[in-house]
């Protein structure tokens, strides 16, 4: 299909994807670095380029609640947030998933306070990983655009019926201009299609009750349905990714390996840093180090068997975490990947990096890869949970 090659910021790319998906209700609250995505969307509303009803809620908790209400009324809904905004919605995230509403939400990855920080890290989406949302990470703005369009299809699929959050790194992707290919409005809308909910509060001929109290005799069964829905989501993420490939030329799956087939050492991680890591991998390959990487696109549901399969021949694995689970040795992703590798003998280590938007460059990643390889070979031991760029005492200042 014919596509336009454009230069957009990640936020504008997200706004475009949302517009093309033709949501009926968009209820939002601004927060850096998401704000411009919704500014752009509001511009589409003002210019009559979308029929969506735009609700300026008084907080993110209300924005998500309004989305749940609209979804209960049987319409396609979307919103967007970041960092503390996602945290403020926390209660309602669980409700959206439990009620099985396919709300789509770009999350412009931002650090949680405190201290207050508006820059990129993954603490926000990690804090929501148990809520029951499908979570898809984007490496660049092309992926963010593509992922948002696919998110509607994934969430609305009858085997899934779950809300979907699409992560794009705050400032790194949201505020930088990238060149990307976008579908024509009709082609994007055609791919996303029409939303056909099975039940709706507005269907007066078939009255239903939504949001009932459930006592100990049934709560477990209600929640277990979400487990099964998540299990069915793997195939849907893959099939929608394949279908999107036919439409756009860009096919997506659960994982995105890079030079992994013969790698002796690999990085595993999420988001834009995996783009930076490709440069580190290429540099090391040029120096004779068989490095590779595994970018995890679909984080929830967590593709454990596929990850184990992808990494089984890699002798040394370093998992990158852009968040900390305080009190746990090793970040959230490290613990989950190590769990997936249970029974395998591959050397594994963890690097915490990039908190609060701290930059990480290819040389630092290459260093981490070399350290991991050395440790795996027994040359120089390393910690279980290492850091990139953390100053202990009297280190180099970081330039903003």
């Amino acid at each position: 299909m014919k596509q336009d090659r454009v230069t957009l910021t990640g936020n504008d790319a997200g706004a475009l994807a949302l517009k093309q998906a033709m949501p009926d209700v968009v209820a939002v609250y601004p927060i850096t670095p998401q704000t411009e995505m919704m500014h752009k969307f509001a511009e589409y509303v003002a210019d009559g380029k979308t029929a969506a009803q735009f609700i300026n809620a008084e907080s993110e908790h209300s924005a998500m609640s309004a989305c749940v209400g609209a979804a209960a009324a049987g319409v396609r809904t979307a919103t967007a947030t970041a960092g503390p905004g996602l945290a403020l919605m926390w209660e309602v995230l669980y409700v959206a998933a439990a009620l099985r509403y396919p709300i789509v939400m770009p999350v412009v990855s931002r650090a949680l306070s405190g201290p207050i920080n508006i820059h990129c890290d993954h603490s926000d989406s990690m804090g929501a990983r148990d809520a029951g949302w499908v979570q898809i990470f984007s490496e660049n703005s092309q992926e963010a655009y593509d992922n948002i369009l696919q998110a509607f299809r994934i969430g609305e699929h009858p085997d899934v019926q779950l809300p979907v959050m699409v992560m794009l790194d705050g400032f790194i992707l949201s505020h930088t201009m990238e060149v990307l290919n976008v579908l024509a409005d009709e082609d994007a809308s055609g791919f996303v299609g029409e939303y056909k909910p099975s039940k709706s509060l507005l269907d007066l001929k078939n009255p239903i009750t939504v949001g009932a109290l459930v006592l100990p005799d049934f709560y477990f069964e209600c929640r277990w349905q979400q487990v099964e829905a998540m299990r069915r989501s793997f195939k849907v993420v893959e099939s929608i990714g394949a279908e999107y490939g036919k439409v756009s030329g860009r096919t997506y799956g659960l994982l995105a390996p890079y030079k992994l087939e013969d790698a002796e050492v690999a990085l595993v991680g999420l988001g834009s840093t995996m783009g930076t890591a490709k440069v580190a991998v290429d540099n090391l390959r040029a120096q004779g180090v068989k490095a590779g990487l595994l970018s995890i696109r679909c984080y929830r549901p967590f593709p454990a068997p596929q990850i184990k399969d992808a990494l089984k021949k890699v002798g040394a694995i370093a998992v990158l975490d852009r968040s900390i689970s305080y009190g746990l040795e090793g970040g959230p992703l490290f613990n989950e990947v190590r769990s997936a590798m249970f029974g395998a003998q591959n050397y594994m280590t963890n690097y915490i990096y990039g908190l609060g938007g701290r930059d990480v460059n290819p040389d630092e990643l290459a260093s981490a890869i070399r350290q991991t390889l050395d440790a795996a070979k027994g040359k120089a031991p390393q910690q279980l949970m290492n850091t990139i760029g953390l100053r202990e005492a009297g280190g180099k200042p970081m330039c903003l």
Partner: protein
Amino acid sequence: MPINSTDGYKEIPAGAMIPEPATALAYKTGAWRTGKKPQHDKEKCTNCLFCWLFCPDSAIVVKDAKIVGVNYDYCKGCGLCESECPVKGKAIKMVDEAVGAVCAK
């Protein structure tokens, strides 16, 4: 009833959604009463309809704008009817559960 107490997760509706209306009728909240129930006195009653208006369970039965009785299947025994009755000596009184009363459906 759409849901049976032995239904498993494969059988209940998705999202804990209740797929038919007025299912509250199947749940007899009258079992919550703890010893007292309202008894209506037709002779004293002026049919002001206050008890009907204030009853939180819609358990006061009205026909042709007159109070005809109480639906004991749903009356929780809160006593608001007696409390709101403006008639001197009360046209609707909370009495012991054991006392016979005219039931109206």
